[in-house]
């Protein structure tokens, strides 16, 4: 069952620059996302992935083509808040996501906007904070927390709206390795345990590897998509578009080039070690 369905979406930011007609930021993208799926959108800055993200919760509406969320057309203005309740968006800068000066009040912001009764908000806030392991920080001031903690609170803020899908636009780009791990393991936990649909927009391939499906975008179009091992085995294509592949995959790919017989290119450290053991005997 498709939860989000984008059909031939085109979009351009209407400003006309230097007299030239603005090019499409997204140029004919069709993409279906199933309920409970973990999808990574991978690509360079300016490839259209962030623009695409904003289409998933009706922050942007396609110039042509359609986006349906749980059956609702995002261009239907009566459905806007319905859609935003179902699909939460978390953005890059951890400092600019949080609006209240106390953690729990920030998490309450979404349900408050939805007009949820106070006692129920309390329950949802506590549950959401526990889900991201930030419950003990509920009385803290956000500006004293680390970037990873702030992003987890932003995720909790989305959860408290009882969303069915979280879209994250480069949530780890401004974090240190610890913060990145915190956010990634939170997302995996939510996906696996709560069957949350996750759309992760990133340019880190080591994060994309963790997804069920990787969609690579370039120049406003989908370049290739599939399971991580399918996508990253296309080393040449990715290199041509100057995207990274995991070092494990690259090593195996180069060995294959030297005439070593390797059936399946590894993604992780462990896969690569066992592949090398097999080859070396």
């Amino acid at each position, binding site marked *: 069952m498709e939860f989000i369905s984008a059909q031939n979406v085109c979009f351009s930011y209407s400003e006309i620059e230097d007299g030239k007609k603005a090019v499409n930021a997204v140029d004919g993208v069709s993409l279906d996302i199933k309920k409970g799926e973990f999808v990574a959108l991978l690509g360079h800055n300016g490839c259209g992935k962030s623009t695409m993200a904003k289409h998933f919760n009706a922050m942007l509406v396609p110039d042509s083509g359609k986006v349906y969320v749980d059956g609702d057309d995002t261009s239907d203005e009566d459905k806007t808040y319905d859609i935003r*309740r179902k699909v*939460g968006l978390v*953005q890059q*800068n951890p*400092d600019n996501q949080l609006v209240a000066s106390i953690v729990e009040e920030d998490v309450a*912001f979404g349900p408050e906007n939805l007009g949820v009764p106070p006692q129920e*908000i309390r329950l949802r806030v506590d549950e959401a904070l526990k889900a991201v392991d930030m419950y003990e920080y509920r009385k803290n001031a956000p500006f004293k927390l680390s970037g990873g903690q702030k992003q987890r609170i*932003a995720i909790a803020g989305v959860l408290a709206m009882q969303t069915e899908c979280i879209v994250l636009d480069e949530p780890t780009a401004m974090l240190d390795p610890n913060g990145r791990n915190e956010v990634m393991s939170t997302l995996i936990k939510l996906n696996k345990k709560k069957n949350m649909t996750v759309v992760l927009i990133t340019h880190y391939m080591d994060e994309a590897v963790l997804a069920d499906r990787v969609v690579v975008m370039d120049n406003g179009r989908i370049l290739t998509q599939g399971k991580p091992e399918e996508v990253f085995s296309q080393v040449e294509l990715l290199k041509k578009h100057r995207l990274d592949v995991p070092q494990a995959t690259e090593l195996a790919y180069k060995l294959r080039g030297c005439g070593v017989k390797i059936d399946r290119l590894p993604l992780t450290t462990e896969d690569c070690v066992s592949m090398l053991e097999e080859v070396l005997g």
Partner: protein
Amino acid sequence: MVRDVTLGQFYPGNSFIHRLDPRSKILLLIGYLVIIFCTFNYLSLSLVTIFTLFYILISGVSPKIYLKSLKVIIVIVLITSVLNLFYGTGEPIWQWGIISITMNGINRAVFVTIRIVCLILASSCLTFTTSPTDLTDAIESLLKPIAKIHFPVHEVAMMMTLALRFVPTLLEETDKIMQAQKARGADMDSGNIVTRVKAFIPILIPLFVSAFRRAYDVATAMECRCYHGGAGRTRMKVLHMTKRDAAAFAVVALMISGVIVCNMMFPAVM
């Protein structure tokens, strides 16, 4: 260093005053401020002074911190009281050239000093015992009636909330930008006033640019979380008046009647 500045001098605690509904605190403060200026003789003035000491003691915040809050305005207090001292009317009891001191002048100086000090102490008590968010909520709730005449109560409260949230962030950012420009040899500590003001341009411009970028981001984040103004919005924390608030109102009401009685029983000196 800029980052040491903390906004709002809230001292978390669990005292009787801490636990009052913030709306009660604001209303009581207003009543108290009115009554300070309605003290017309020394008896009512001392009643107010004693009451002031009383709430300072039960507020659970160290008197030292209250003294600190007075330090800032000590100069203003001194100037006003000295001016009042010399501008009294009536028979001079001491004279030197054109400068004269009258009984009325002394009275005025004493009253003005005590009134200002009480005013500062009472407002400090409010900010010391109430978190900024509680204050904002209380103001929003108290102003609700005037929303009917199309005053944007919710919007003003939302702006205050966001300001409280982002002041520390922007202070930290200012600090970072200053360090970065210093690393490029910016000199902010020498030269005349014009060069010093000019030296702040490389700090102010990036700060403005960043504030606008943040504003845009925050607006997007708020929209994503279904924000659409105050209509139909609920709050997680609902303000409750309890018996405690009733008691506080009763105490202040008693004090006010005491002041009125004192004013009526004894001749006014002011």
